[in-house]
């Protein structure tokens, strides 16, 4: 089964197969609740449980949901990213072809950091203000665990 998926993916029609699979899973795995802000929505995928559980133990539990950190916060892009994430998540989840342990992609880290600044702009004003382009302060270098500790 897995083998055939891999083959399917490798052999030409990646998009076709992927989309098909994606679409199906998306519906099946309560894909629609994915568009809400409820962290439980993310945990629809057991594969998100690790972060979900950790988030409950984390310092942001009461102040930030998954989406507060993982989706951009001007309305339109938010749903684009969700669709994009949603697509990949569904696809990976279905095929099981994702890295294990899961690693945040560069783009996700950048989105998260924008969100750190969104809420903590005042706190980091002084340390962040002289950030010349390409020289921004990298929050996650020191605060990797704020969202969901114990990793």
């Amino acid at each position: 089964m897995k083998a055939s998926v891999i083959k399917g993916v490798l052999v030409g029609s990646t998009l076709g197969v992927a989309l098909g699979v994606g679409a199906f899973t998306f519906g099946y795995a309560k894909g629609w609740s994915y568009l809400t802000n409820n962290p439980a929505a993310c945990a629809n995928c057991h594969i998100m449980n690790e972060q979900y559980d950790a988030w409950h133990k984390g310092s942001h539990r009461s102040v930030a949901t998954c989406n507060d950190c993982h989706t951009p916060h001007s309305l339109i892009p938010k749903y684009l990213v969700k669709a994009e994430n949603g697509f990949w998540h569904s696809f990976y989840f279905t095929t099981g072809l994702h890295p294990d342990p899961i690693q945040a992609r560069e783009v996700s880290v950048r989105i998260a950091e924008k969100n750190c600044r969104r809420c903590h702009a005042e706190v980091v004003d002084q340390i962040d203000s002289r950030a010349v382009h390409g020289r921004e302060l990298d929050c996650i270098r020191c605060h990797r665990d704020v969202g969901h500790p114990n990793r």
Partner: protein
Amino acid sequence: LMNVMERKEEGRNPFFRVVELTDDTEDPSIWGKNFPLQYDDYLKTSDQSRTRFGGSEALPKTPSEADPRSIVAQSRLEEDERLKRMWAGYAFSTDFREDRGHAYMLDDQTYTERQQVSKQPGTCLHCHASVYVAYRKAGDGDLIKGFEAMNQKTFADARKEVTHPVACIDCHDSETLALRITRPGFLEGIRALKAHQGIADYDVNRDATRQEMRSYVCAQCHVEYYFKGTEKRLVYPWANGVKVEEILAYYDEVKHKDWVHAETGAPALKAQHPEFELWSQGIHARSGVACADCHMPYKRVGAHKISDHHVRSPLLNVQKACQTCHHWPEEELKGRAVAIQDRTFRMRNLAMDALMDLVDDLSAARAAGVSTNDPSLLMGQDYQRKAQFYLDFIEAENSMGFHAPQESVRILGESIDFSRKGQNAMRTLVTPKSVAAVP
């Protein structure tokens, strides 16, 4: 598409018990019926692939009467001739190979040339076969009695009593599947160590935490050891602690030597795979990271996380072995491990050169007719014993320093000091007259 439903299924289901397992079920294929995932991985320990310093190479070999193996791991003696000289007069100088997967442990022990050049006792099997059932049988139900009985036998006789390399029952309780220590050597060794640390009457199977057990099951075998007395009892030399100087102190106290060095007459010691001892001195142990965390990392199979029973070099499996804790790219993590190993390897070679120089001097002095009880010669020999044990402690350890980077280099540095001091002890300072004599 099945996939997602399977996953939801798996989410709920634990494994099915197909067969009953008892404390006498030795054959892993039977356990495999209940736990096919772990069994499949367990079988993979027959894979052979290399890393810079670990893994192993699969070298073809023409089977012979004495040694039917058609594939062996590379010879460490050929990789570094100096090893032969370090072990001159000892079985290891005839055959010493890179270690490989668990699947080979019984054959590699049975057919190593070391068996031909010297009579080995049944004790050997303690760490190369599934002996738990055999021990209890030999002791009419008493593990320790059986252990003692098997130790007394010749290797050949004892060998007949066992069939499998390390198997499920050697690490697991057949009912609960909880980890369990089955090896008398470790049961007694860890008790002695804890006693030294002020903890009386330590029973590992009663007192150890689960996380400790994830290392202790490995420490049943991946440790320094010696055979005590004529009864050839397997003993782990930890009564003073597990640091190299504490182990050497123990051997000096009990006046143990493994052999007399053929070239120099030094009462020499051979260190063997002190993985547990070295790891104990490292930052990972201090951080509570167990052998199994790196060598049997969790892997996701559907909703389950199972322990990868393909025990092997973590550098062949960096993603699961390291990236759970270290968010660095795979190549970077390999690079870090190799940087530590390269530094250790460099010092290991300097220590080896120093030792060879000392052996040169001792041989030359003997050749020149310096009497065997000459104080300077005796001093030189004692320094050789020390230098050699320290060097071998890292040489025989199998992570090339990774398990405790700073401690490894510390030990090699002290080995260098011993070798060079040994040379000095046998030399006299130049004088205006003696000058000519200097190279």
